[in-house]
């Protein structure tokens, strides 16, 4: 680890930035060698802003606006294989079109940073936010970090390179922001000076790049003889993430004073019911918790940032004292026992002797608004379920039936 220092306030640039623009600035400062992407709403501004930086000579990056997302992720792998620092951006159907290559990126241990403006999957076509694209790639081997604010999107994008390129990890990272809700809303962002980011990240040191002087073959057949060993190593690598992520965050905190953890806890200490949500819903949940607390309700919030690897033990510990965990999530797993986030949380709690009830609400699909009243509705239901001692495996809120 390099030694970084606290950046003095007068070196910080403060701007109002959308989530997309914040990511574009972070990518610019991260000295990306290659960026390959294809336009898809609501991610487009990331690449557009980045292209302006490129046209103005502010970055040395080779930007390739390719002919599809499938090509974008493929080009990223090629560039990463020769040792470049690589990024891309997409959403929804574009992310889904990358699916085949996502698995290759993770399996070939390519430290690509993939920023996603999370958006609903087709069909029918919908450009608004939910997490079905992110959940669709949850088993691909990508690290997944979901952000609540433009500041966090900026910070996380920078940290993602350090995490991905760490030799103990060498895995691609998805940095998720809620489409439109965060990607297109302007918030105050504190930006570091370029040299601080460059010092923090350093230059990528590839482990085994494609190099004509030392010829190697990447991705050849590994059948019954070796395939399983590759997967075993990949599994080992992703469980190195929590430790390295903590180190990366600690260093980033030294520089900025900011850190987020694998999840954020808000008023959970004495909470009887803990709301668990990801991304921008975390903000709404905290505001709801404040109001409910004023009314004497013992409620807290966990805003999960790291979905992959899932911090099972830590989450189990954080909620073990509560009567119930009320999950708000923006994805469905059709025909599954429950929804993706609830499945993780329930599995994480299984070995606890005394475990809180898990109540799962699927909300906000296709960008349906999730106002504070929906949280209160869920909260009232959760209280009833706690009284009865029984809750449905999952249910939807805010939908016409």
């Amino acid at each position, binding site marked *: 680890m390099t030694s970084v220092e606290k950046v003095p306030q007068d070196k910080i640039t403060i701007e109002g930035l959308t989530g997309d623009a914040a990511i574009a600035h972070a990518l610019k400062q991260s000295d990306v060698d290659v960026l390959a992407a*294809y336009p898809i709403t609501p991610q487009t501004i990331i690449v*557009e802003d980045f*292209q302006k930086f490129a*046209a103005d000579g502010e970055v040395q990056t080779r930007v390739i*606006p390719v*002919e*599809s*997302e499938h090509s974008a992720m493929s080009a990223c792998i090629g560039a990463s294989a020769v040792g470049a620092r690589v990024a891309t951006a997409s959403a929804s159907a574009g992310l889904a079109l990358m699916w085949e290559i996502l698995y290759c990126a993770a399996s070939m241990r390519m430290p690509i940073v993939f920023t996603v403006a999370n958006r609903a999957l*087709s069909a029918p076509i919908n450009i608004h936010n939910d997490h079905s694209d992110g959940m669709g790639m949850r088993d691909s081997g990508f690290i997944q970090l979901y952000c609540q604010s433009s500041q966090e999107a900026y910070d996380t994008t920078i940290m993602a390179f350090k995490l991905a390129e760490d030799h103990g990890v060498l895995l691609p990272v998805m940095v998720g922001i809620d489409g439109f809700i965060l990607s297109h809303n302007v918030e105050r962002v504190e930006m570091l000076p370029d040299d601080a980011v460059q010092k923090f990240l350093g230059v990528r040191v590839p482990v085994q790049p494609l190099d004509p002087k030392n010829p190697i073959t990447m991705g050849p057949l590994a059948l019954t003889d070796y395939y399983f060993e590759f997967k075993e190593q990949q599994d080992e690598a992703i469980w190195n993430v929590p430790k390295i992520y903590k180190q990366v965050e600690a260093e980033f905190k030294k520089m900025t004073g900011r850190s987020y953890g694998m999840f954020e806890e808000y008023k959970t200490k004495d909470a009887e019911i803990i709301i668990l949500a990801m991304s921008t819903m975390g903000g709404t949940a905290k505001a709801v918790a404040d109001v409910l607390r004023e009314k004497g309700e013992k409620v807290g919030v966990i805003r999960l940032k790291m979905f992959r690897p899932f911090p099972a033990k830590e989450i189990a510990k954080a909620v073990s004292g509560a009567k119930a965990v009320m999950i708000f999530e923006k994805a469905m797993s059709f025909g599954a026992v429950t929804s993706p986030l609830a499945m993780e949380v329930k599995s994480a709690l299984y070995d606890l002797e005394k475990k809180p009830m898990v109540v799962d609400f699927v909300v906000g699909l296709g960008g349906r608004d999730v106002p504070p009243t929906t949280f209160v509705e869920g909260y009232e239901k959760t209280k009833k379920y706690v009284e009865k001692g029984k809750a449905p495996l999952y249910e939807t809120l805010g939908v016409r039936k």
Partner: protein
Amino acid sequence: MTESDSILRHPMSKYIREDRQPWIYCSGCSVGVVTQMVARAIDNLGLDFTKTVVVSGIGCTGRTSGYFKTGTYHTTHGRAIAFAEGVKIANPELEVIVVSGDGDLAAIGGNHLIHACRRNIDMTIVCVNNFNYGMTGGQFGPTTEHERYSQTSPRPVGNVEHPFNLVKLAASSGATFVARWTAVQARRATKSIETGIKKEGLSFIEIIGACPTEFGRMNRLGNGVEMHQHLLEVAEIQNGLPAHEAELHYDTRIVCGEFVNIEKPEYTVVLTEMNERLKKG
């Protein structure tokens, strides 16, 4: 219906879902013009509209399918032709029309375009080429000319890539009818769409359109009217010209006309014959 209502009603409105109005298109856009060309071609031919399927991909032109009052499908980005192939193969009696943009058909769906041409499957592809991805905000695409400006190829450098000439691409891939018109040559273009629909095989009709909101604005090409006037000025009609000579230089010369009209076995006919042969065998 009162008399004034019947006068106010557009003659093509019988094909259009009026409850979906107003159109989403910007003022000065060519997509509405092309939508009318397709409607008029259907009308002129007296097609059984209940057996006509309109398929489109993603983007501004991709929205076309949703406006037609028949069986239509708005597919995902690039998949319009592949989807339409499925429709045609499953029920060859249907008249299949694909309406989509250059970005959808030639970039993310480019592979489907060349392979559908190669197969010579009976469908009519109407491609509105406005030289950029309009819907997502004006990024450069597969038809954007070298050094043109766009959201992803801003000043001072512009686009470092070179464009496809879609007429040449479709012709060399095996399409049996290939034509190009601009959006202002509405009658000629409509005639070509009619010929394309009647043709038993793959017909590719490129309509050069204007996107004043994005491509026009970024390249300072004027408003919609000015852009369409320009298209008329630089259009050069050369019916029967070999497709490989059908040049397209936005500023100076857009060669228009019908370039390919040949006969080749049609894919679904061949498939049916093969099945018949297998049954007999």
